[in-house]
């Protein structure tokens, strides 16, 4: 890592307890601008909780979070989002009672600084937001479903829509929580290709269980276990790491 590598998002000594259970334990991690940084770990390692802390969906019990060098530990989740952090969820969180286009428009409107306190004009307009929404649909091959009710989409297409919505938020940093979970092999390949095309233009942090996807497209990998960092390095370092093999692949 050279000194020009700018750290966009970092956690220092981050902790979260649920009852007596320490899910994230004094964890420190940093994410470099423009890289795809994957997070691996067995179930219960605290990966999703780490995401929830980084986006402030939940508040940490200790530690600090820095976004572009400034402390954002106390900011609300919508403020974090407005500073350019967008995420997808492990469980599909698309709006089922809306058309596919409206799902994306809601994200794109805000990304263009749209004011939600507009009562009189019609939603769906605003050429900039619509152009961004259409571009995101196109990118995930969802254009043909634009006017479809979201609840009628297949699960796979809903997952793709989830990623499209995340992109429509026009973020700088994207957090993807198991983007290929529940997808067919063909759909997984499509999502992998899409993520590969996003590399460089965005800083991407990805939780993923599919080893093929992780090893093929990651620049950096952090392996978590029991709320702490077990190992960190490039794909080849991780593949050869003994303690990772024990914890994750089960020796």
């Amino acid at each position, binding site marked *: 890592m050279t000194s020009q590598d700018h750290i966009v998002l970092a956690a220092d000594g981050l902790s979260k307890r649920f009852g007596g259970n320490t899910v994230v334990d004094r964890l420190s991690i940093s994410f470099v601008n423009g890289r795809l940084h994957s997070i691996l770990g067995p179930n219960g390692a605290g990966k999703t909780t780490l995401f929830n802390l980084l986006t402030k969906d939940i508040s940490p019990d200790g530690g600090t979070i820095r976004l572009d060098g400034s402390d954002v530990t106390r900011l609300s989740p*919508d403020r974090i989002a407005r500073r350019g952090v967008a995420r997808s969820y492990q469980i599909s969180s698309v*709006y089922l009672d809306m058309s596919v286009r*409206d799902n994306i428009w*809601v994200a794109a409107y805000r990304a263009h600084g749209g004011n*939600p306190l507009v009562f009189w004009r019609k*939603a*769906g307009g605003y050429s900039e937001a619509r152009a961004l929404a259409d571009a995101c649909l196109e990118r995930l091959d969802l254009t043909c479903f634009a006017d479809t009710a979201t609840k009628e989409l297949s699960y796979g297409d809903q997952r793709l829509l989830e990623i499209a919505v995340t992109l429509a938020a026009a973020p700088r940093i994207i957090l993807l929580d198991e983007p290929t979970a529940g997808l067919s092999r063909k759909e997984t390949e499509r999502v992998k290709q899409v993520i590969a095309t996003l590399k460089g233009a965005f800083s991407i942090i990805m939780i993923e269980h599919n080893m093929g996807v992780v090893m093929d497209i990651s620049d950096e990998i952090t392996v978590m276990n029991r709320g702490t960092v077990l190992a960190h390095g490039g794909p080849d370092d991780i593949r050869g790491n003994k303690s990772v093999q024990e914890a994750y692949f089960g020796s």
Partner: protein
Amino acid sequence: MPKGGALAAADIVRAAAMVAAVAALPLVIPVNIATEVLIYGIFAMATNLLVGTAGLYSFGQAAFFGAGGYVAGYFLAQGFVSLPLALLLAGAGGGVLAALIGALSIRRTGIYFMMLTFAFNQLVFYVIYSWQSVTGGEDGLAGIRRGTIELPFLGTLKFDDNRAFYALAAVLFLVSMAILIRMTRSPFGLVLDAARQNARRTTSLGYSVHALQLAAFVIAGVISGIAGALFGMLYRIMPIDAVHWTGSAYVVFMVLIGGQRSMLGPVLGAAIFIWLQGLFSLVWTRWPLLLGLFVIVVMIYLPGGLLDLFARVSAWRSRLREQRR
């Protein structure tokens, strides 16, 4: 865009049908009952902005209806006659109370939000009940006059005639409906709808969900307050029952009976609820029991309300037509 044009044409047809229906209503049923239907229609539409669009099940809306009714009623009973000012005060009264109660309840979700709005409703009820010198206590606030509107060139509009008062209610009803329909289709309405479906996702897209929900709560409070003012003027008394929590439950029932998916639903719900209330109370002194049974039947068999019934009937008819072919 041809599609936009066609959509606008359909909207104009619907608006014309609504105006015609409102104009015809007092020819079909007694004029004061028709006025009551419109007043509760306004109240139910405002409640539907919360229930149907924002997904906020408030069981305290009678507090805002009552606040508007008592504020405007007090003003008019004191000898002031300006109707616009009375309505303005009623809207402000409902809105300010909604801002206070909303600020304290909006962060709670589900059952906790329901219980908080319910409890605040009770609190408002007992304040009005106890503050007898101003509100008339359990006798209600009597002596409310209907107020007048001063217009240049046209002179003074009076509403002592029940048909004139109906016309006033009709104008306010149609304006409220237009505003609320437009609002549900605006960015504000779409984001509220998004937050109803998934508040966390909506926050993660950069929206301050609680602030938007509070705005909806205040808007509903303002409109409910104006409906309350009309109610006080209609019978020239503001009864204490109008702020009782059962009033809050009834207006939610109206929304559920009619259907939440459009603003027509709550209006239909209000009309049927008031009609049934009248009918059942003639038949049996224990009429709320029958009304309760009716609500239960609708909720079990028509979870989408009467709008759902229309949709099912039209789907069934088009299927029948296809079979004949």
